[in-house]
């Protein structure tokens, strides 16, 4: 296309000021500065947009990434350190002919590696016949001896494969590294596609970019086909190390995309050499595990014992042939740079073919001759560990002092099998958008393949990763960026007939217990944030000195209530007014801004977010956006000026209440009324009942008698002022307030309504008591509800001779105990097996 008219005449391409580095292959431009043929469509379109419009489109893209919660954890902190996924708006474009070659080469490499895996964990002919040095297996920490002799279900250990490619100055593609255990990136690649198609819609359509969806369907189908027992609807789970993992976003994204439950090790259990998922309805068999966990962590009993992320007994289940694992455990042995030197020979031996995709030139120091070559050419080489190890980095002898070089040589001499040397590759460059225009950065391309029947399907696209400024190392962990990869359709040939993809139904799964647990706590923390905000919001006006009868409570009342709720020291009501004010201000600022303060808003919000993050694949992107809004609200720094601060606080809290309402609304509107919703709502109801019970104690039982101020404040905090006024135009009366907040089951904020909902939910939970008998949870819910229904508000609010409300105090205390017991009982019955595992060993 566009053979004769490269860049359109009215192009603003010059605005982008793109100048490639001489001496490197530039993906976009010829050395002359003229766009390469397959880039012309993109360059023309982008040129027509001009830099300003292009930048505007890009901002939309960044908002999308934010809104979808696409992240990459760097520190691995689930409480909020994950960074937005770094993506650049200009895709890498690959022409059809070149792609066909890559596709063939990648499929061949996957076939070769699969054959090697077969041998290494089976006959070991490669070692016995001296085709492969034994040290590459025996000294390899990734060779899992427990996996020896295991034949994977279906006979294909390598189901998922990724390879990192780079292009040298002469235009050839090279393999830099193989990823064979649990390659990451296809989820990010799909996200990049969704974003790039949104920000460059016109160009995307004009360029005829090959779609990624078929690859995802293929992968999903082949996962289902791996199920050992040919059941109609096999159950596949995606096993993640958990929210701390740097690519957790991708795990939840893929689980959501494919509709497979996302599980952690503790969600699975091995019984009778079979794997089961712990759900609310009991144990459900698992047929296929797509793991995103490294080999060594999969089974703490047989593999690495110092980490309990995995599933104890999993190896036994695999040995029993009862579960398929994608990729087979042990396949990490191939992620060994030392092996690369032997691939051409092994390819001839095992496949009878020449290796189509050369690896970057590699010398393994475990053999005398290559070692000698390495010593003679140290300055031109980079020295790397022969076996991948976290925390070990490449070394560049050319940049070393004499002493450091000698030390390196000594280390190689002591254990030569641990080192490889590789040629330094001059990576090609791609245009990357910066504020100043487009600049060239080094790039690498990760290509993915999936076993499909008798061969491998290669995803037509990939994850392009770009190095940081003045760096030639491309690694997400080192803070690189990413790009979408556009593989262009071939127009010369008719498009291949689209094979209709038949989607096999995956087995329906009941709610995993861990998910129920997270939903329960999400509900509890959301309610804690809500009640906290309402409490603080009703107290602020007192601080501002507003004594407006209709709205604000007096300082005295506020201090008494907060003392009753144990927020202020016991002696606070006796302190001079000035000190009271100081205490209050300190408390409120702490509650609002100090996220490290346990029980404060920020802290509760952090807990809420932690629970939500564990549920990422189950929350809609709208819900997620609302959560991010909440966090952004509370992350604002307080104004320095005290007066401004107060106004700012009130505005802030008003905003938070509305955002929280949006959260509740989205949950109500979008969640199906299954057990998931039930656990979330159980959490909310339970928490709300506890909060109101506490308020009633502090605001009625422990308040001085005959003060309207307290009742008013109480109604305000409980958001029931208007309801009260519509019903009782008369003055404030304790019995009427108590009736509204304790007994009235039509008031959404009364204890009674929470208890009635709790009773209904508990009745609907999967049964475990004998038929016709009440479970502990049912009895507790019923007991609390009955106590409230039988309560008579008039006598309860009548004070005795000493002015006390003993019976009401007792009632509230007993309600509180019942609610705690209910929470305990729910945990014990439905969530308790989420105990942590520990390893024991003895002589």
């Amino acid at each position, binding site marked *: 296309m566009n053979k004769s008219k490269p860049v359109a005449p009215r192009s603003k391409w010059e605005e982008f000021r793109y100048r490639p580095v001489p001496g490197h292959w530039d993906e976009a431009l010829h050395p002359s500065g003229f766009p390469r043929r397959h880039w012309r469509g993109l360059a023309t379109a982008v040129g027509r947009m001009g830099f300003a419009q292009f930048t505007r489109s890009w901002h939309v893209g960044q908002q999308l990434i934010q809104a979808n919660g696409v992240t990459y954890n760097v520190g691995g902190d689930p409480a909020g350190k994950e960074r937005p996924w770094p993506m650049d708006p200009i895709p890498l474009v690959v022409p059809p002919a070149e792609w066909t070659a890559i596709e063939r080469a990648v499929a061949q490499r996957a076939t070769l590696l699969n054959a090697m895996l077969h041998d290494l964990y089976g006959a070991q002919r490669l*070692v*016995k016949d001296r085709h492969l040095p*034994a*040290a590459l297996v*025996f*000294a390899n*920490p990734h060779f899992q*001896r*427990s996996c*020896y002799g295991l034949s994977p279900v279906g006979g294909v250990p390598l189901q998922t494969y990724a390879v990192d490619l780079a292009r040298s100055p002469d235009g050839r593609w090279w393999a830099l590294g193989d990823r064979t255990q649990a390659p990451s990136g296809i989820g990010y690649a799909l996200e990049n596609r969704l974003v790039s198609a949104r920000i460059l819609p016109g160009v995307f359509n004009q360029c005829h970019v090959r779609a990624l969806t078929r690859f995802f369907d293929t992968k999903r189908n082949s996962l289902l086909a791996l199920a050992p027992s040919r059941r109609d609807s096999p159950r596949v789970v995606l096993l993640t190390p958990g929210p701390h993992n740097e690519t957790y976003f991708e795990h939840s994204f893929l689980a959501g995309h494919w509709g497979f439950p996302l599980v952690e090790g503790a969600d699975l*259990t*091995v*019984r*009778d*050499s079979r794997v089961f998922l712990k759900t609310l309805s009991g144990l459900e068999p698992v047929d296929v595990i797509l793991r995103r966990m490294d080999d060594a962590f999969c089974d*703490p*009993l*047989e593999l690495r*014992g110092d980490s*309990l992320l995995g599933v*104890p*007994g999993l190896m*036994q289940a695999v*040995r029993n042939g009862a579960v398929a694992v994608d990729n087979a455990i042990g396949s990490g042995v191939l992620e060994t740079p030392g092996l690369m030197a032997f691939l051409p020979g092994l390819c001839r031996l095992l496949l009878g073919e020449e290796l189509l995709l050369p690896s970057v030139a590699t010398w393994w120091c475990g053999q005398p001759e290559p070692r000698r070559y390495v010593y003679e050419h140290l300055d031109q080489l980079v020295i790397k560990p022969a076996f991948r190890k976290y925390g070990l980095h490449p070394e560049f002898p050319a940049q070393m002092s004499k002493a450091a070089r000698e030390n390196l040589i000594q280390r190689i001499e*002591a*254990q030569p*099998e641990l080192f490889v040397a590789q040629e330094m590759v001059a990576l090609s460059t791609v245009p990357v958008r910066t504020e100043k225009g487009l600049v060239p950065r080094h790039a690498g391309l990760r290509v993915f393949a999936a076993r499909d029947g008798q061969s491998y399907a290669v995803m037509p696209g990939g994850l392009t990763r770009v190095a940081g400024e003045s760096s030639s190392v491309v690694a997400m962990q080192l803070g690189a960026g990413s790009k979408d990869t556009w593989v262009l359709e071939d127009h010369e040939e008719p498009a291949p007939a689209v094979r209709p993809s038949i989607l096999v139904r995956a087995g329906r799964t009941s709610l995993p217990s861990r998910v129920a647990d997270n939903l329960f706590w999400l509900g509890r923390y959301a309610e804690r944030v809500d009640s906290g905000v309402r409490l603080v919001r009703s107290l602020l006006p007192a601080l501002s000195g507003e004594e407006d009868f209709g709205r604000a409570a007096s300082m005295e009342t506020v201090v008494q209530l907060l003392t009753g709720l144990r927020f202020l020291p016991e002696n606070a009501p006796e302190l001079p007014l000035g000190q009271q004010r100081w205490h209050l201000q300190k408390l409120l600022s702490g509650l609002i801004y100090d996220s490290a303060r346990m029980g404060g808003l920020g802290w509760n919000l952090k807990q809420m977010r932690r629970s939500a993050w564990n549920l990422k694949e189950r929350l809609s992107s709208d819900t997620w956006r609302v959560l991010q809004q909440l966090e952004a609200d509370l992350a604002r720094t307080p104004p320095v000026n005290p007066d401004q601060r107060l106004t700012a606080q009130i505005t802030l809290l008003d905003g938070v209440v509305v955002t929280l309402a949006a959260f509740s609304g989205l949950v109500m509107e979008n969640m199906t009324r299954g057990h998931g919703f039930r656990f979330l709502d159980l959490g909310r109801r339970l928490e709300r009942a506890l909060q109101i019970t506490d308020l009633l104690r502090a605001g009625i039982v422990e308040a001085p008698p005959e003060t309207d101020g307290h009742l008013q404040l109480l109604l305000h905090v409980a958001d029931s002022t208007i309801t009260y006024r519509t019903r009782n135009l008369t003055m404030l009366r304790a019995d009427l307030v108590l009736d509204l907040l304790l007994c009235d089951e039509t008031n959404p904020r009364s204890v009674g309504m929470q208890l009635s909902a709790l009773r209904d939910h508990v009745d609907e939970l999967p049964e475990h008591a004998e038929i016709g008998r009440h479970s502990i949870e049912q009895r507790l819910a019923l007991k609390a509800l009955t106590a409230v229904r039988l309560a008579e508000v008039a006598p309860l609010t009548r004070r005795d001779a000493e002015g006390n409300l003993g019976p009401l105090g007792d009632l509230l205390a007993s309600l509180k105990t019942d609610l705690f017991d209910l929470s305990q009982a729910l945990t014990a019955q439905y969530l308790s*097996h989420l*105990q*942590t*595992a*520990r*390893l*024991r*060993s*003895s*002589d």
Partner: protein
Amino acid sequence: MTYRATHVTRHIYEEPVAQSVNELRLTPRDYGRQHVREFDVQVEPEPALWRTRRDWFGNEVTTFSIFEPHDRFTVTATSIVEVEPARVGVLPTVRWEEARDILSAGTEDASLEASEYIYDSPFVAATPDLAAFAKPVFEPGRPLVEALEELSRKIHREFEYAPKSTSIDMPLAEVLENRRGVCQDFSHVMIGALRSLRLAARYVSGYLRSGANYQGAEASHAWVAAFVPGAGWLHFDPTNDMVPSDGHVTLAWGRDYSDVTPVKGVTLGGGAQLVEVAVRVVPA
């Protein structure tokens, strides 16, 4: 000599264990001069599922799970095993450097197989300190067997036997520095020293005959086997400065303790725990 060996392991937990998955390496090995006549293992509480298999090193592994809540766990292994005395013959005079080069070349199948044991393993990695420790013993040109005997003696002489002084996870470097430990540590030191010279050594777990004045009887024991080209694997017990003969019963071997842990499991729950181990090896 024929022995009846009884090995009892008992765990008492502070809080109930909800379930556990376990692995035992308690079956004596049947090889060379050792023959297993009978073997039986009992577990309390009653396990849900038994399986046995051979691991990579050829050791028999018994796996089982327990799904009923329990606060104590007992494994009793009993075996009747016959051990012949080590044959006293002419020992090969191969020099240690030759042995090292034979292992590196791996031309023979036996040396290729043995070469697995010159590399680092989870608990034992070669270090310059370990090499320095071995160096005075491995004088240039010295016959390997002679050097092995002296290395074992050197450890016995320079290290203090201090039961309860170490836990399993005490790093090897610390053991070497403090010069104290138990049979496990002594074996790891010897293996590490040999690997630092690129010689092949493996960890052997087993029992000592009861009653004799040995360190490490009444509990499970450990010693070292080193590969000597032409003679195969020769055993050395640095804890007792002796060459194991018919007083040592072999259970399992591997690269280090982590490959042959006799009783290992993953539990849910449990809290703190007390462990008691008792071994009795008497003539049958």
